């Protein structure tokens, strides 16, 4: 059997890579994908703990996280489209103002 610490280490590595991606990437879609990566790593932690505590509550949390992530992706991409329509750019450095 795989020890719990291995799963936690993998999850930590993925989360850290996601944080680094948010800092490194300047494209707003790529930043959004890094946020999805972080959500996924947290899902792995929840599933691992649910297995090791022998309770399915963690898996239900993962479902709710997935639903929220899907809703967030829909709204976020809609915002990105509307910003791109007004600004013609996806770089977060250029989009520093909320008004047109």
């Amino acid at each position: 059997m795989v020890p719990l610490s291995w799963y936690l280490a993998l999850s930590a590595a993925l989360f850290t890579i996601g944080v680094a991606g948010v800092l490194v990437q300047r494209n707003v879609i790529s930043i959004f994908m890094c946020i999805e990566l972080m959500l996924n790593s947290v899902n792995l932690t929840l599933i691992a703990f649910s297995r090791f505590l022998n309770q399915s509550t963690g898996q239900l949390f993962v479902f709710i996280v997935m639903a929220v992530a899907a809703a967030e992706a829909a709204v976020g991409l809609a915002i990105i489209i509307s910003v791109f329509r007004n600004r013609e750019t996806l770089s977060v450095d250029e989009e520093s103002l909320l008004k047109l």
Partner: protein
Amino acid sequence: MIELPIQQLIFLFLAALAVFAAFNVILQRNPIYSALSLIITMCALAGTFLLLEAQFVAAMQVIVYAGAVMVLFVFVIMLLNVRTEEARQDRVKYLKLVTPLLFVALLAEVFFVARSVTTTPAPLVTPAGEHPFGTVEAIGEAMFSSYLFPFEATSVLILMAMVGALVLARKRTAQEAETLGKIIEDANQPSLAPASPVSELEENKHELAA
């Protein structure tokens, strides 16, 4: 040579794949390559979910995440012309220098915490009369009995997100643009109004009328 059980070998393979693909996500400049790498990461994570005996969640991970959400991403990337963004120079330079330091620091911190966890898995015991762990039956029973309220709240959230996405992403009609332009004109001097997308739409409207 250390003898490793087959499960650990599978885990190591999946973990290496996930971490490699995750690095690819953040190092690629073209978002379409990032999206494809992210799909690989999610599929590898679905494999680790299977190792943790969460079959239903693994299936949902592939269908909802790697399927629906990432198709949405790829669709938006294709819809917007992102190729011109690649040539753009980054204005914020210091982040590229600070990020590796922060990365190593955060990684060391979380590994230190993860190292102190020494739990080894107990074999699964299913009490008589209950559904086996991680199956659709077990999850569905919990979701529609003790966790009914969060489930319903999530459905309201998704409905709101759907309406919000529709409102945000649609194009303004000429009539709406006219009203918006009037509001802006009322608020500002007539010479300062209206902003560029509105005036463009108004021009289109005049062309159509002519």
